[in-house]
């Protein structure tokens, strides 16, 4: 018998005789909160920056003042092609190693933990939010949900090859519990909350 079959048969004979019912989830995540305010507070608490903007022009202006022109920037947003490279999505992912800033979009955000949901469809490359020194993500204010309960309702059964929730900059506290931003991924995260 293969390991697969022997493991499965052992599990079958050892698991409880009757199936325990799955609980419903509809009663969770219903507490009323100010979604936008909560999002901003939590993001600040985990080391992210928040910029409220009403157009991509404002994003452009912000990036131009905050990030040196000489350093490499990439984006998935055609309107930002003047300030950052586009058309890098088919390149070898290793070629992104010298990127200073990546500017991408998120499908939606989650107020309770300030996480942003991104998938293959809007990442350009899977490694794009991890490999740059700094990361900026644009999300519409109307696309912030309250909790992870609503987040998964929104994701539903949509198909993706890869998707991730990103909450703040990469961090570690592995040395004596001292918080250090910028472990292996981005050292800083700016979230542009779009009107």
């Amino acid at each position, binding site marked *: 018998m*293969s*390991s*697969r079959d022997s*493991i499965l048969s*052992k*599990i079958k*004979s*050892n*698991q*409880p005789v009757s*199936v*325990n019912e*799955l*609980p419903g*989830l509809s*009663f*969770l*995540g219903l507490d009323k909160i100010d979604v936008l305010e909560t999002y901003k507070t939590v993001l600040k608490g*985990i080391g992210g920056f928040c910029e409220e903007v009403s157009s991509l022009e404002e994003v452009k202006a912000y990036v131009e003042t905050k990030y040196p022109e000489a350093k490499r920037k990439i984006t998935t947003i055609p309107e930002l092609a003047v300030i950052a490279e586009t058309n890098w999505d088919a390149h070898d*992912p*290793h070629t992104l*190693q010298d990127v200073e800033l990546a500017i991408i979009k998120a499908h939606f955000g*989650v107020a*309770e*933990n300030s*996480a942003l949901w991104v998938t*293959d469809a809007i990442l350009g490359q*899977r*490694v794009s939010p*991890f*490999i740059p020194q700094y990361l900026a993500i644009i999300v519409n204010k109307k696309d912030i949900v309250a*909790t*992870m309960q609503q*987040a*998964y309702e929104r994701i539903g*059964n949509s*198909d*993706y*090859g*890869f*998707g*991730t*929730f*990103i*909450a*703040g*900059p*990469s*961090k*570690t506290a*592995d*040395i*004596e*519990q*001292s918080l*250090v931003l910028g*472990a*292996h*991924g*981005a050292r800083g995260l700016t979230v542009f909350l779009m009107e």
Partner: protein
Amino acid sequence: MKNTIDHSTAAATFNKDVERVNWHDETLWFVRSKRDKSAHAIPEWEALRDTASKIKNNVLSNMHHYLQEFEAKAKENGIIVHWAADGAEHNKIVHSIIAKHGVTQMVKSKSMLTEECHLNEYLADNGVQVIDSDLGEFIVQLRQEPPSHIVLPAIHLKKEDVSDTFNEHLGTEKGNNDPQYLTEAARKELRDTFLTRKVALTGVNFAVAETGEFVVCTNEGNADMGAHLADVHIACMGFEKLVPERKHLGVFLRLLARSATGQPITTFSSHFKKPRKGQEMHIVIVDNGRSTQLGREEFRNSLKCIRCGACMNTCPVYRRSGGHSYHNAVAGPIGSILAPNLDMKKNADLPFASTLCGSCTNVCPVKIDIHDQLYKWRQVLVKEGYTPTSKTIAMKGMSAVLANPTVFKIAGKAGRFVMKNMPFMVNNNLNAWYKQREMPAPPEESFREWYARKAKESKDKK
């Protein structure tokens, strides 16, 4: 294989450095306090725990079905699925994948399962160099130590220790203990590793039966840096990592990081469903004793564990004995109920490394009855004859004394006499009760004697 030092002996050694033990204790309690603050901010916290526990109950009772569903979906998604009955088979499978691609180096993110299977040693023996990319694991790997905590692998070390280690291996400035500086040094070193490895291995936090996807949670982004740059991604999971449907992830992701470190969620919660174009993705599903534990009705619940580490951070014994004293990949209270299933003889000491205070059970996000299971393991281990002789003799003596009223009376009298007149007979190095403890002053008379005297006095009055 090194000889195992039992928990109490290792704990005694750990306790020699009082200052460090106090620091270890306080640091972990600080993490526990952050967990409390975070949990208390969620009004429906208890409902979440209850729901998570029920979902896991369903998974355990329907494992046979969910595993096959998961396998079928993962295959549909283009993932290659392997099954390993034990640690040895797991290691062989991982090595065969690496060998097939003709490489001798691999980058690995945190996976307690690979610690459990001793994968690194096996691969090293077969000429494959593994670099652990989680900062804490990277530190302990350089020091040739195992992790001492499942979430905070280097929590037993001070920044001075890390500085010395990095000075020796990475050439950082001697005496520079700044965590920012040290982390930056590791970042530079590991970035090069990520960019040059063809094979990356990650653990799995959750696997979804409904969709065939798996979720990996990190704060550092190291699992993603490895996986998205490598040609081959190998993900290793114990079969109990399953959840039925994607929507159930919402419940577990709300609980996991809050219970672990008090964060609202880990920085990255990555959902891997299909390999990226041109990439090969493997999942190794491991049993290694789990199906046996599933059949032990009293200990089955231990398989609900989502590896948050909350039970360790709160445990008064763990905090004052350190993770290494548990001589098991998973330390602390949860490790002490998982380990005897793997090897009763080797781990017979662990269920006794607890005061049974129940704090672990109270913080567990999936409501495992941890302290009850510790208590139950003690009974199993005694019955099976795995407890140390000194304990067995003491227990047998105790039961003889308690079973016979006359013997009990005489023993009590003798005990009071000895404690009063010859305290050195009991207060010596042979009696573990006197370590960091004083016995109460012996009473003048026993309750029985008092009762008899009072009865006589009141009778005399009449």
